[in-house]
């Protein structure tokens, strides 16, 4: 997966109403690419067969 560049990060910001400029722009680029790369590398067998359940209810 190719890294997002500054122009792409800036455009993504605009899409959600944020005008992101340097120095934040560079740091957000590294931070976002690091998270996406790390997440992309995790693909355990069976991942497509589970539902994204955020909680289990506490015992009654």
């Amino acid at each position, binding site marked *: 997966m190719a890294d997002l560049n500054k122009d792409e990060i800036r455009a993504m910001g605009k899409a959600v109403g944020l005008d*992101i400029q340097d120095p934040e722009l560079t740091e957000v680029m590294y931070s976002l690419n690091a998270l996406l790369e790390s997440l992309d590398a995790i693909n355990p067998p069976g991942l497509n067969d589970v539902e994204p359940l955020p*909680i289990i*209810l*506490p015992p009654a």
Partner: protein
Amino acid sequence: MNQSELPFLSASDLSRLIQSKEVSPVEATEAYLDRIEAEDFRFHSYITVMRDQAMDDARRAEQDIASGQHRGPMHGVPVAVKDQFWSKGVRSTGGSRILADFVPDEDATVITKLRKAGAVVLGKTNMTEFAITGFSHRYSTPRNPWDIDTYTGGSSSGSGAATAAYLCATSLGEDTGGSIRFPATWCGLVGIRPSWGLVSRHGVMRGVWSMDTVGPISRTVEDAAITLGAIAGHDASDPYSSKATVPDYQKSLGGDLTGLRIGVITEFMESDLVEPAVRQSVSKAIATLGELGATVEEVSIPLSMDAGVASAVLLAVEPALAQQDWIKDRIQDYGHDVRILLLTGSLLPAQAYYKAQKLRTMLRQQVLDSLGKYDVLVLPTSGKGAQQQVEDPPITSKETAGRLSFLFTRIFNLASCPAMSVPCGFDDRNMPVGLQIAALPGAEEKIFKVGHAYEQASTWHTMRPPGA
């Protein structure tokens, strides 16, 4: 006993002296307030000290106890609470400049419950900004009494510093990704993140709704047990709070561990992120659990080391959504780390959030399957001891983006399980090391039993930080 010596008692011992009327709540509260005034300039543990309200609480407790109305082990005990919790008529900043002047018109339920139990609330403790990073502070950074040049761990940094520096008898923190257990381990304290839903989150500033939990940071396991007992239980104002009966956690303390099955999570024990001296301390502690009668075996949880990434996505996205108006209008009012985190969270694609939640489901199942075979799981709380104080450095590469990979707490936030950090030794710089003990949701009693048995077989909890 000299009044100035009262702060150095455990909360439980102070409680017994108050119940027997050998010490009055007013004496104990004055002793803590005097010590805060004299010493907290070194530790930066409080944002707001509630002297007048605390003395009112103490006088009320003294009158009640004198008239024979003792309410239980927290009656008259001075407590510090994290500034993440609303306090009626007292500013509640959440560690942020954005809420610097926010004065709630009601108390968080945990504060209401503390007062109902007769506790004396001393004040509001320092914390990282909105409790969503481990390091970024807006009201100066708390200092670790074990070495004043090192950090306490966060986000409940002030609760850790205040408890370790004897500036409260026990304290409350909040744990979304490890924010109770992180300062507990680095400050040589006991901290327990309870089961999700055991403690009301009404009036608690939100991090990640499905991971936020309120719990104690204390000097002993018994202190943690009485503190949790006071705040646990259903609250109609928090629809996700449990309706289960709250046990008397003090009754789970004592006895050996014969018959208990303990699983050691190999992925964490063998990780390169664990420094040799930390591994040695934790291994010795686990051996002690075996000597106390438990059956100890290794267990693999294959997705363990992916908990950090999955939780990092949730910890970025959910606060960014909750604070989207401030991010648009007041981004420069945030500190550096939080600003970058919230902007990153604002841009993470929905697919990433969805995948993180799916990974969470799989990881949780692996944890619950393991806890079907073992009563508790054990591992290091952190791969290293407390580090030097540093300002938030800029992120200059993808490799420097993650700051907390050495922290092994998030697996249990994702799994909704309770977990405790208990002191188990020191690293090669003489900074405290913590053993983490986790159990099934609702099984806090097992954690207290194991933690207390280990504590009583060791001496770490009796040691006083050199800076305190």
